[in-house]
């Protein structure tokens, strides 16, 4: 059987495996990344996407809070982190955070997404009180907060085990973990770009610990800097094995590297071809992760719309006031409204579905 219009013969055996619902190998992953037939790769990803989700495309009405950019890690690819006391460093007090929540209390927000730096001084109680305080104001809202990197940092500072740290956060209102901080798992890349950061093993073990405690997480990959195709594929394979064990990853979100204002500002960042290919290959390799998300703040609304035809089933949310990517020069708007998101989805031939954090459908 042939798929009409597939141009790269190397895709044919992969097509047959995808059609048969078989798991793809590391070699398949590399061949997909190396193929010049972007649309062929995209069509294979669409087969999987449609099998899993039909024409549905999910979005969420959420609020982002980046509580502090003060960070001990100093990763070279980051435009957001600052050392304490450096120009542009900030931390929000709890009343400031609560005011941000109250400001938007009238909006039908279902998730508050909280991410920050690895702050050297904030006590563990700050994080617990933050979650408590937000939950007190908006009990119905799901708190997706603190990447595995932040959780490991908090555990370290509080001299607690990761499990106990997660349990304490969960008791304070934590609902799930975002997927950030995974970067690329390759030791070669990490030695050069983020030597201080939580190791790949550490990242995976925090995520898996969370899964075991009933907390879902997402997973990410920061691509388009110095990593090779093989290193991307290895990253995806590592996530797939972890998911086989604990099954708690909800969504995978490839993050396009934005070079402006980072320690790597001489790099170009990925092309749109690379963006779409990475999303599509992720859909194909991560056969056990339910959702592939295009974070429109990074890709822009136009490319995110196109990505819905390349294996993506989620475009994230009605984000307002996102700081991390915008400090890296993202020229995308600060927020999209619900009707803009729905139009964007419909124009791609998909059916917009508003979801909560756990991908339960919100009735219109």
């Amino acid at each position, binding site marked *: 059987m042939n798929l*009409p*219009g597939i141009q790269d013969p190397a895709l044919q055996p992969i097509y047959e495996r995808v059609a048969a619902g078989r798991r793809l190998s590391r070699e398949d992953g590399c061949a997909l990344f190396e193929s010049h037939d972007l649309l062929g790769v995209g069509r294979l990803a669409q087969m999987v996407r449609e099998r899993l989700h039909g024409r549905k495309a999910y979005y969420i009405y959420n609020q982002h809070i980046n509580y502090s950019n003060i960070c001990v890690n100093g990763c070279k690819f980051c435009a957001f982190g600052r050392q304490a006391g450096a120009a542009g460093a900030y931390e929000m007090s709890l009343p400031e955070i609560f005011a941000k929540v109250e400001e938007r209390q009238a909006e039908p927000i279902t998730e508050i997404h909280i991410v920050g730096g690895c702050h050297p001084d904030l006590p563990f109680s700050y994080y617990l009180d933050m979650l408590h305080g937000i939950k007190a104001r908006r009990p119905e809202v799901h708190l997706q907060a603190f990447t595995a990197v932040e959780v490991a940092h908090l555990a370290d500072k509080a001299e607690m085990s990761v499990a106990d740290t997660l349990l304490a956060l969960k008791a304070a209102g934590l609902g799930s973990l975002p997927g950030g901080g995974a970067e690329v798992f390759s030791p070669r890349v990490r030695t050069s770009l983020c030597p201080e950061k939580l190791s790949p093993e550490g990242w995976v073990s925090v995520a898996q610990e969370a899964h075991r405690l009933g907390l879902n997480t997402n997973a990410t990959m920061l691509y388009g800097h110095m990593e090779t195709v093989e290193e991307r594929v290895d990253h995806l394979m590592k996530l797939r094995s972890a998911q086989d064990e604990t099954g708690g990853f909800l969504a995978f979100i490839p993050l396009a590297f934005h070079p402006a204002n980072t320690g790597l500002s001489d790099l170009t960042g*990925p092309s*749109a*071809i690379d*963006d779409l290919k990475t999303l599509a290959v992720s859909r194909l390799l991560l056969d056990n992760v339910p959702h592939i998300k295009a974070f429109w703040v990074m890709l822009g609304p*136009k490319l995110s719309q*196109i990505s819905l035809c390349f294996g993506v089933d989620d475009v994230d949310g009605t984000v307002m006031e996102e700081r991390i990517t915008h400090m890296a020069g993202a020229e995308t708007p600060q927020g999209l409204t619900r009707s803009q998101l729905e139009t964007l989805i419909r124009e*791609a031939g998909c059916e917009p579905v508003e979801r909560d954090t756990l991908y339960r459908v919100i009735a219109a």
Partner: protein
Amino acid sequence: MRAGERELTDKLAAGVRLNFSEACRLWDLDLLELGSWADRVRWRLNPEPRVTFVIDRNINYTNVCTSGCRFCAFYRLPGAADGYVLDWELLAAKLTELKEYGGSGVLLQGGLNPELSLSYYLELVSFIKNSGLSLHGFSPPEISFLAQKSGLSLTDLVQRLMDAGLSSIPGGGAEILVDRVRRQISPNKCLTDQWLEVMRTAHRQGLRASATMMFGHIETREERVEHLFRIRELQDETGGFTAFIPWTYQPGGTELKGEAKGAVEYLKTLAISRLVLDNVPHLQVSWVTQGPKVAQVALKFGADDFGSTMLEENVVAATGVGFRLSRQEIEKLIRTSGYQAQLRDHRYQMLPG
């Protein structure tokens, strides 16, 4: 796969020319399948793994215009306080800057300004010609307007402009080449047959031209296909079109208002253009309206040309859409998409460098 769809894909696979009803059915195909077919035609017509671009400057000699197009945020009516006609000194400075930037030619367009005479146009053409830059100027509505005003036939007018130094024609002002649409959105602009007649005349006299389509306003998808067929028919007759450039209507600041069509609709329209216009050699991306990322993706949907550096762009910018790219950025965008960047001129002759 539906029966009609199979027949259509057989035709696409065989590279056979599509008739009108078949072309209209292309809209039913999946985006990526459509793109794959368009990409095949791209390689058949342009077998080199390169994407061309031109270093030029977009100069608008006047914004005064009687056309009253409801989709336009650039024009001013005669007598308006902020209407302008470019003065010679400023024009000279713009040309010098373009030459220093390595430019090969000027893209010159303006409003239908009743105060400008034939002698002004001829002087403008020779002024630019004398600077050593080639001139890609005057869309069909401008030529039609000037013919009417000056009383010259189209043939005579085109000859006078060519004698003064005009070397090719931009395909602007086509909007949608369906009179139902033109009457509603551009009441005082030349109708379809006249637009085509200007092009026919110019082609016969040896001028090459591009053709454009501004879509995503009040037209139907079928009317877009009709537009493509009018271009294809004339091309069969004259062979004078070098490239086709579809772009999306930008509503900011216009009387027509509405929402801009998204990237998926743009890519579908681009791919269908490639599939229908089997006789037009090049297909150009519109990074000005789509941004650099979608422009890269467009290279996989049939496009083989990245357009121009522009240096300045005033018409789309008046709607608040303001993408800007330097020569280096264009080259990088092409290369990182997997193609060689190839410099060309306005007649699609390849240039060194």
